[in-house]
């Protein structure tokens, strides 16, 4: 998109001597279709957003400003505001902009086939999923919401330090919350699926996953017995490792606000744990060619065989932590309105066993499918984990009685040291930065049912 890079270049052209200026220009187009419990389209949303964010560093002071007005006068004005904001900032020696990378660029992850899907294709896909979910299993009585969202964006980053990148990103995601009822209990869960383009989204798989996740929360109640291994559903793993990822970000690691801050070079997890941030993962919406300050994304091993090897860095956090650290291509922004911060893109646990091996090696276990209170009960600063869990008794891989009142009380480091197996069913879990798989923990991890 030529006009985006033109806008970014225009902003950088307003830099004064001794100033470092970076312009981040973005255009994002998105469609969201929501289907209601009757299977009809409840809402359809179309959006287009353009914006420019300017990061200006002068005298080791950071100023940031943004605008949605991309006219020449507004672009000039936003640089002036960033300069003004830098005046009020404290000196921070870590404030700097990246230099251009010499690494060859990764292939474009956006899929051209995305453009072929019409609005009608998208509506047909998601209404069909909603219709089939309630027909697939008599225990699944209705849906609450079924939703499809696709998004395509282009970002252009230009800086006075020589960075000049343009990156296209695209994804489509679908999820369905189904409600099950066996006349004695009600249960609900969400099936989900993600791809780069609509033709790659498998409706059969989404229906099957939604129905299975909901129906297996019904049935006779059972009490999880002590001493059994704990199997964590990929959704549970995603929420827990999302917090691990935030704790391993360069900002908390350099400021000491992380339970792993003093752990680099030491064992922080069981030997079964190798944790990799896959910055270019096609199977995650966060996977892209460049991060949000124009540094090429890459795979970064943060825990290898249980040993913490480092943190996930942007240019600034790498400078802050020192010791020769460099950006790992993990600069992320919420939008053009905020400067980049270091954070995970697509954390993945390296598998240690197949699904068949999981069933064979762990015939009896406690399977936790849902967490409650994870938003506030998992603290990435202290590492504390105090949440509720629900799921079912696992017998040879099949449900053998549900439970809903397990209290889970541990911390992230204990959690990591308790991992005894990682299955190979890796998949992206929405609303997280994790490509999650089923994980087995030793029995000693959690507290007890109330």
């Amino acid at each position: 998109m030529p006009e985006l890079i033109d806008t970014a270049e225009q902003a950088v052209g307003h830099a004064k001597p001794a100033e470092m200026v970076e312009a981040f220009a973005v255009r994002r187009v998105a469609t969201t279709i929501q289907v209601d419990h009757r299977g009809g389209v409840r809402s359809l949303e179309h959006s287009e957003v353009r914006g420019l964010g300017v990061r200006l560093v002068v005298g080791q002071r950071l100023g940031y400003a943004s605008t949605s007005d991309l006219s020449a006068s507004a672009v000039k004005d936003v640089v002036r505001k960033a300069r003004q904001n830098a005046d009020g900032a404290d000196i921070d020696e870590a404030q700097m902009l990246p230099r251009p990378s010499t690494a060859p660029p990764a292939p474009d992850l956006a899929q051209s086939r995305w453009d072929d899907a019409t609005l009608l294709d998208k509506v047909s896909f998601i209404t069909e999923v909603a219709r089939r979910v309630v027909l697939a299993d008599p225990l699944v009585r209705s849906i609450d919401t079924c939703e499809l969202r696709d998004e395509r964006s282009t970002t252009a980053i230009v800086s006075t330090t020589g960075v000049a990148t343009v990156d296209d990103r695209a994804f489509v995601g679908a999820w369905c919350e189904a409600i099950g009822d066996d006349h004695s209990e009600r249960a609900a869960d969400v099936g989900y699926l993600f791809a780069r383009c609509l033709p790659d989204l498998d409706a059969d798989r989404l229906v099957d996953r939604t129905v299975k996740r909901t129906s297996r929360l019904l049935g006779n109640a059972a009490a999880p017995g002590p001493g059994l291994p704990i199997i964590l559903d990929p959704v549970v793993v995603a929420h827990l490792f999302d917090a691990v990822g935030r704790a391993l970000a360069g900002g908390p690691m350099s400021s000491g606000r992380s339970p792993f801050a003093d752990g680099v070079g030491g064992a922080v997890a069981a030997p079964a744990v190798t944790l990799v941030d896959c910055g270019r993962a096609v199977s995650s919406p966060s996977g892209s060619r460049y991060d949000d300050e124009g540094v090429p994304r890459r795979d970064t091993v943060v825990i290898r065989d249980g040993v913490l090897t480092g943190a996930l860095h942007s240019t600034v956090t790498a400078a802050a932590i020192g010791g020769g650290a460099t950006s790992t291509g993990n600069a992320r922004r919420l939008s053009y309105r905020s400067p980049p911060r270091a954070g995970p893109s697509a954390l993945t646990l390296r598998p240690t066993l197949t699904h068949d091996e999981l069933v064979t090696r762990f015939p009896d276990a406690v399977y936790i499918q849902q967490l409650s209170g994870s938003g506030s009960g998992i603290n990435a600063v202290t590492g504390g984990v105090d949440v509720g869990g629900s799921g079912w008794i696992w017998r040879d891989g099949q449900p053998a009685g549900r439970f809903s009142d397990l209290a889970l009380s541990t911390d992230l480091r204990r959690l990591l040291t308790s991992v005894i197996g990682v299955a190979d069913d890796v998949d992206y879990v929405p609303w997280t930065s994790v490509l999650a798989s089923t994980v087995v923990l030793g029995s000693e991890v959690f507290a007890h049912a109330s």
Partner: protein
Amino acid sequence: MVTGGRTGLSYTNVLTHDALLAAAEAAAAASDSVTTTGSTATGVNLRERSASAVQRTSHPSFSVAPAEKIELLRQIDDAARAHDGAVKNVAIDHVAVEQQVWVATTDGTMTTDERVRTRVTCRATAVRDGRTGAGFCGPGVGAGMELYELHPPELIGVQAGDRAVVALEGRRSPSGAMPVILGPSGGGLLVHEACGHGLESDGFSRGTSAYSTRFGQQVGSSLITVMDDPTLPLAYGSYGCDDEGRNAGATTLLDRGVLVGTLTDRDAATTLSGGANGRRESFAHGPLPRMSNTYIVAGQSDPSAIIASVDNGVYVATLKGGDVDIITGDFSFTASEAYLIESGEVTVPLAGLTLLGNGATALGSAAAVGNDLAFAQALCGKDGQWVPVSYGSPTLLIEGLAIAGGGRA
């Protein structure tokens, strides 16, 4: 654009005539694609009217120089660190919002509202003997710099620091069903999550809320009356009109335990009784039925007498947050500050305390309601949208609430 109960939504942040027209055409196209009824565009003569502003300031945050605001934050930081040497990290955010809202609808009205809110959040981390504790304090108001007159910076820092230090000292909490006393902040979050979300009209009208078949029934103790009131002056969750242009008004949700009201958006208001609660995070979001300032009405009991009445139980001063399954009504909350009650006295701090239960059952087990109503402020998330709310409660005694103890002693 709403046609036949279906919605087409489009937005743009480019405020040119062409871009706005393109957005309107996109909404129309979206609506056409999901409905089978055709319609002919007609002009609308809009009557402009202003809602009564319930959030206002005589000291706007934007009139204060950044250096002055930074100095206030330094005072908070200093107070937190000075409170106890164990406080090692402090992170503070000052967020001020001024909004002018215009809602134009084809019923011929253009409603305007002015909103202003300011909030400061302080997160302190304390470290001692290999343990880490976190403390939080985050007051907010529907006003400007008046926030710091109502909540002096030093006090904010001390509260966050103190909570972080207390968290270091918590011992493993007990487990099982026992009397639980919720302090004002804790009770407010409970009623917000365990009752309020289930009474938002979308889940209610779809039949997916645990409360959807219980209108007119006793769902809580007769001691419990729950209100949602977006007209509370200077409150964090207040507004003069909702985000669909309807005049704000208070809604009684539970009247002495009987379910009598719901929180409706414009769509649901035709079939359900409730106030104007259609809210959006921003222009980029469609309206949803949401809470504003939700609270349990103050009762008659002296809070200290409530504590003295419990021989063996727990006192939960604040909850970190929690989750509620609105379909079943089951909830899980984690305490951020809790203490043991022994022989009618609050004694040692507890760690890792989780409350498990069901919203209606818990409200039905309320045995005493204090006379000390107080509010806390938060951003409430739903369907990816975050809106400012407050929630309040007096001190509340709930008999037989399930506690799952853990702790990392």
